[in-house]
């Protein structure tokens, strides 16, 4: 390894004479965790742009009252596919991309445990994405019952819904395989001396996330399979006329759906927990309690699902149980936020782009956490359920939460990935532009929800006009801001920038910074020893 010149590495050539394929076949057949991580991240970004265009279609229609641009049916398809694509196509694959790139390097492993299955996990995703997007062009139009796919409305959808169901099956299989891979890698391939409680927190976050995925993806697969048989094979799981219950679907869906929320946010917690200490030049505060908090959040996530169903008419005892359990989530989440603050406290803080995104995350995710607490209060939730307040809440935790953490992660690790420093000025512009436009878009949605605007409507009453106009302006601004990110990343990939040293961040302590930048195609073939 030590004889390899950086130039060879920069072009991603294998330093062994294995006769690996080049060009497109390199990517199709690769079993290398770094290649696969790269593909996951590009796939994710592509889907982020596709889902983003759908969001902008929604915001364009909602710019002012009346129907101007799309018809209501297409509008419903846009909200549905925007949700599905962002959750399953953008956020989850991005997290798996980070896992692929970073977990082996963070624990000193040569690759993922099941390298060939890793390839297969990724290559299942593009067909799923194609099914989702082409569902818009089949007879009957795309799925239009919302990403939550509640029957009986789902039963009325055209064959676009079937394509969506198959896409979810495929993405579920991909997630389960990826999770098995991550768990096996973390449990078996850690470098000698790296006990579980010495692992970087990102690995802990992903270990717990992977267990969540394995627990709930089959539940979702079951739910959509029942939808499929209700649609085509005469079953009545969700049809009262045949002895079923439409609300049963909601219970099963949210038994998946609430852990899914943490599947989306836990890897982001992991990334933040790596970056904050590096730029505070101080060890992570309360490592053990961070691990317990992650586990606590994961366990609680299985007993809170019905807070998504407070208006379905649950019995009083059920309402009280799910309200109390939901409120409890504030405790471990609070512990995490306090630990992050204590990590910065009396540090030696600098404000490079990754740190800025971490701080943006901290501030806005916590705001989303507070609105979550408000929503957990069942009597208040009655007013807010299915309004724009909920839309604001989950975009604060998923966009300003997960997405900002992923941006932080990209800026933090891209010197290691490409060997080139990102453009700090571009990074900062991207941050401030995203931060401000995000709030211009989503903060007014709190007001809309409080004032009584339901979500998923293509047209609205006059009193909602002002804030909708503001939100739409913010949305286009936010969307355009992401092109800055694309440009900054491309500059690194094409080596237009300062050459990155092996360890560009003086506060960073983890193993990936001990290998050259860009990271060689194979790292840690001989495991490092952790003292």
């Amino acid at each position, binding site marked *: 390894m030590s004889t390899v010149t950086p130039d060879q590495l920069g072009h991603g050539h294998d330093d062994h004479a294995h006769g690996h394929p080049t060009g497109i076949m390199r990517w199709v057949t690769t079993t290398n965790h770094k290649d696969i991580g790269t593909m996951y991240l590009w796939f994710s970004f592509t889907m982020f742009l596709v889902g983003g265009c759908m969001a902008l279609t929604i915001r364009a229609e909602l710019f*002012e009252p*009346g*129907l101007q641009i799309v018809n209501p*049916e297409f509008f*419903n398809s846009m909200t549905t596919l925007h949700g599905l694509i962002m959750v399953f196509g953008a956020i989850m694959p991005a997290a798996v991309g980070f896992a692929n790139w970073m977990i082996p390097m963070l624990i000193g492993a040569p690759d993922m445990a099941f390298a060939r299955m890793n390839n297969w996990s990724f290559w299942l995703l593009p067909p799923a994405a194609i099914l989702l997007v082409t569902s818009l062009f089949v007879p009957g139009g795309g799925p239009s019952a919302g990403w939550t796919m509640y029957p*009986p*409305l789902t039963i009325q959808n055209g064959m676009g819904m079937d394509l969506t169901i198959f896409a979810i099956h495929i993405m579920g299989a991909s997630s389960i395989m990826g999770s098995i891979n991550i768990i096996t890698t973390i449990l078996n391939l850690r470098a000698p001396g790296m006990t579980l409680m010495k692992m970087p927190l990102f690995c802990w976050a992903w270990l717990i996330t992977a267990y969540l995925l394995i627990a709930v993806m089959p539940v979702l697969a079951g739910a959509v399979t029942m939808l499929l048989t209700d649609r085509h094979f005469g079953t009545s799981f969700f049809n*009262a006329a045949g002895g079923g219950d*439409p609300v049963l679907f909601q219970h099963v869906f949210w038994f998946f759906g609430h852990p899914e929320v943490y599947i989306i946010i836990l890897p982001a917690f992991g990334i933040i927990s790596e970056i904050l200490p590096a730029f505070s*030049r*101080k060890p*992570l*505060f*309360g490592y053990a*309690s961070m691990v317990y908090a992650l586990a606590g959040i994961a366990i609680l996530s299985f007993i809170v699902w019905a807070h998504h169903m407070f*208006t379905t*008419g649950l019995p*009083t005892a059920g*309402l*009280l149980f799910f*309200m*109390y359990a939901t*409120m*409890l989530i*504030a*405790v471990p989440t*609070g512990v995490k936020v*306090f*630990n992050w*603050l204590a990590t*910065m*406290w*009396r*540090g*030696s*803080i*600098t404000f490079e782009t990754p740190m800025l995104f971490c*701080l943006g995350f901290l501030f806005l995710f*916590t*705001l989303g956490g*507070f609105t979550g607490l408000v929503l957990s*209060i069942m*009597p*208040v939730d*009655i007013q807010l359920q*299915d*309004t724009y307040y909920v839309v604001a809440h989950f975009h604060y935790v998923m966009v300003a939460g997960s997405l900002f953490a992923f941006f932080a992660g990209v800026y933090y690790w891209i010197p290691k990935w490409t060997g080139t420093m990102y453009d700090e000025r571009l990074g900062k512009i991207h941050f401030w532009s995203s931060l401000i436009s995000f709030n211009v878009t989503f903060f007014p949605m709190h007001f*809309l929800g*409080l*004032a009584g605007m*339901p979500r*998923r*409507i293509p*047209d*609205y*009453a*006059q009193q909602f*006009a*002002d804030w909708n*106009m503001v939100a739409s302006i913010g949305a286009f601004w936010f969307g355009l801001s992401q092109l800055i990110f694309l440009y900054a990343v491309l500059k690194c990939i094409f080596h237009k920038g300062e050459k990155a040293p092996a360890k560009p961040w003086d506060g960073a302590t983890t193993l990936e910074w001990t290998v050259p930048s860009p990271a060689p195609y194979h790292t840690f073939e001989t495991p490092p020893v952790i003292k």
Partner: protein
Amino acid sequence: MIRIRRGIGALGRKVLTGAALCATSAAAWADRPWNFQTPVTPIAQQQYDLHLYIFWICVVIFVGVFGVMFYSLFKHRRSVGHQAAQFHENTVVEVVWTVIPFLILLFIAYPATKTILALKDTTAPDMTVKVTGYQWKWNYEYLGEGVSYYSELATPLAQIMGQAPKDEHYLLEVDHPLVVPVNAKVRVLLTAGDVIHSWWVPAFGVKQDAIPGFVRDTWFKAEKVGIYRGQCAELCGKEHGFMPVVVEVKSKEDYDKWMGEQKKLAAAAADDPNKVWDQAALVARGEKVFNANCAACHQAAGTGNPAAKIPALVGDPVVMGPPNDQIHVVLNGRNAMPSWKSLSDTDLAAVITYTRNAWGNKASAGLVQPAQVLAERGK
């Protein structure tokens, strides 16, 4: 562009006046487009207060926590020469910031629990209304009153498509609102005919899903006369944004007067069995009744189905014979034919008149009046 600029200008003015108002008066909060609508029921009032209570708790915590963060970001920067300490745990602090949030939660849970118990209590209502959601309208049925009607969006399409100016209650107006008396506990039973809908009136603090095949209930007690507007809150298909809920709360006297009128209308709409019909009108109505109820066996052309032993009605001796015999058969059934007592006298008279005149039949007594059916039914 002009519209956009005007919108932004109006927005700016609203923000400024709104900020001025909310700074001076708490009551003004309620009428701004950034808080709940002014509550008119006890439950909505509790929700309103609960929300503000939690909101202020969150604000205090938020300011405290991020005050600390910004202090740290300001004081503990490398650029001001701060050297990093290396501490990384403190059990006492960690226990404290686990326990304190838990205690705060108890203070939130207590009032929330009280409100839940109150809002789930649907016992002892003064009246009950059954609300059924359909794609895309509501049906209101006053149980025990025999009054029932549909409530649909009244906004003209031209306004939605931008061909006419939008009026004040654009998308929040219906042809027939739900009407209830003030200060009465109204129990609402909800169900749906097709997909899940959700009946929501923000000022009442009521939002309850209407689930096809099941009945759920909720209640409200409006304490102020007025018109209150809400919308369907559960995605129910392409017209989901176009099925508003409008409730008109009237004084007890006005309500009673309105209900009296509704009952008269309902009675007038029902068929009077003593009405004397002319033959053409009965034949026309009878054809519809026949096709809906009889044609499955006797066939639309009255040819019957000999293979299944269902007689043809063309030239049938009962159809061509005395009316009372035919009325008797239709009312009571015969062999495989069921009783049709469930149809109204007018429908039965119509369908009998139809068979006596259709397909070339020329019965001697071609016209059968509802009163004859009524008389035969009584035997």
